[in-house]
């Protein structure tokens, strides 16, 4: 039905043209103009998606634009930091007493553990030197590039972060990203001075891992199914023993396959928070609580292979 652009007074039965208005660009525009503009924007968006997704033609421009935005992001971060620190301080204060008790117990246990570990490490170094043993790649074989986290995950379904290190620092796609606590993920794409990191909690991330106290229990740590944000330690045979609170670490490359693991061995992943098995599943059902809090990362370390 065609639009009638006149105001018709029912009583008089005559049509009156409304005076041209000023001030509102959208309403002055005709319906056709409006449709052309929105159609053009949608089309432009689709072209951008296609070009950005299928090629790297826009990477340079995007990297430059992101670099221009970076000082603003840093400034906003600095402005908000006192408030964040205050919130953290208040939160810490509320839990301080309970945490203090827990940490004192932990310190006692760890002091005993440290003495055992130190003698084991020294023994290990001596034996390796005597045997001339060359083990699989470990974290020591990588150069460490420290970087600040510029942008944290934007929504519940976004499992990526932006970091302030890129190809200029030697970072490349596929490099492993860690923190002092444990494994974070891998570099998805590297620009000049920034990179996008896919977190371990992304459904497309997975890492070959093992139980630190039961090295024969090897499986894959990946995101759990459904809507949960939990990691699972999958493909661990029922015959292997995995206990609660065991530490799960990356297994590195096992054997001499054609496709070695991109993760060096020995990176902490998390602790076993639950374990169960039933007659239907071939493998154990193991949930892992990650060491890293992926939502509030401040800085990370990129492991760059020594090329």
């Amino acid at each position: 039905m065609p639009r009638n652009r006149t105001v018709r007074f029912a009583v008089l039965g005559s049509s009156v043209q409304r005076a041209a208005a000023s001030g509102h660009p959208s309403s002055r525009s005709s319906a056709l103009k409006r449709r052309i503009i929105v159609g053009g924007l949608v089309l432009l968006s689709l072209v951008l998606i296609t070009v950005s997704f299928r090629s790297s033609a826009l990477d340079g421009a995007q990297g430059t634009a992101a670099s221009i935005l970076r000082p603003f992001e840093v400034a906003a971060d600095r402005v908000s930091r006192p408030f964040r620190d205050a919130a953290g301080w208040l939160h810490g204060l509320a839990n301080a007493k309970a945490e203090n008790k827990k940490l004192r117990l932990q310190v006692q246990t760890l002091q005993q553990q440290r003495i055992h570990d130190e003698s084991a490490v020294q023994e290990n170094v001596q034996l390796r030197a005597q045997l001339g043993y060359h083990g699989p790649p470990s974290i020591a074989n990588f150069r460490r590039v420290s970087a600040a986290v510029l942008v944290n995950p934007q929504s519940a379904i976004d499992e990526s972060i932006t970091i302030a290190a890129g190809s200029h620092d030697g970072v490349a796609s596929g490099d492993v990203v860690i923190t002092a606590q444990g494994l974070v993920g891998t570099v998805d794409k590297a620009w000049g001075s920034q990179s996008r990191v896919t977190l371990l909690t992304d459904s497309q991330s997975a890492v070959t891992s093992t139980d630190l106290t039961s090295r024969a229990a090897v499986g894959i740590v990946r995101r759990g199914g459904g809507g949960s944000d939990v990691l699972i330690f999958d493909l661990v045979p029922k015959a292997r023993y995995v206990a609660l609170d065991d530490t799960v670490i990356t297994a590195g490359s096992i054997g001499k396959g054609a496709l070695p693991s991109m993760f060096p061995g020995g990176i902490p992943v998390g602790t076993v928070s639950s374990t169960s098995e039933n007659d239907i599943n071939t493998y154990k059902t193991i949930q892992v609580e990650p060491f890293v809090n992926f939502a509030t990362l401040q800085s990370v370390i990129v492991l760059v292979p020594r090329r």
Partner: protein
Amino acid sequence: MDGLKAALVLFVAALFQLAVLTEYNPFRASSIVLVALLSVALLRGSIFGALAGFGTGLLLDTATLGTLGVTSLLLSVAGFWIGRYGETTARDRFHAPFLSVAVVTLLYSYGQLALRFVLGESAPAGLVTHGLLLGLFLNLLLTLPVYALIRRLFPPLDLGDRVREVRLLG
């Protein structure tokens, strides 16, 4: 002048979203950019809303190093649609910003999910649905102050300036 003001408001909102809100886990579900954009679109119409949405989306995609155009597409459509609502039915209705934010939050979440699915990225529908209520609540909470602020910056235009197409029924 309105264009410059809108650019500044949406730029600040985007920075706030990127640098502050995402630092606190519960606030990751909210989107101050979406609320600010819808407020601007309601007050300045469909074309303004669509252009503002496109620019804001491009800014977010650039800052997060995401696939360019994804957020632009969603925000252009959202800005246009709510702008059109503002030009027609929503005039002087108190509930208009709240209704707009509620509906668009819902559609934006699932639209984002659908686009991720089409692009072959992870698209956990359960996670989106699970976090939707919190996101909706936080966005509605943000609507009152954000809309009040933006209404001061973009005073509503006279009725004569806004309505030109009138069709009488009967």
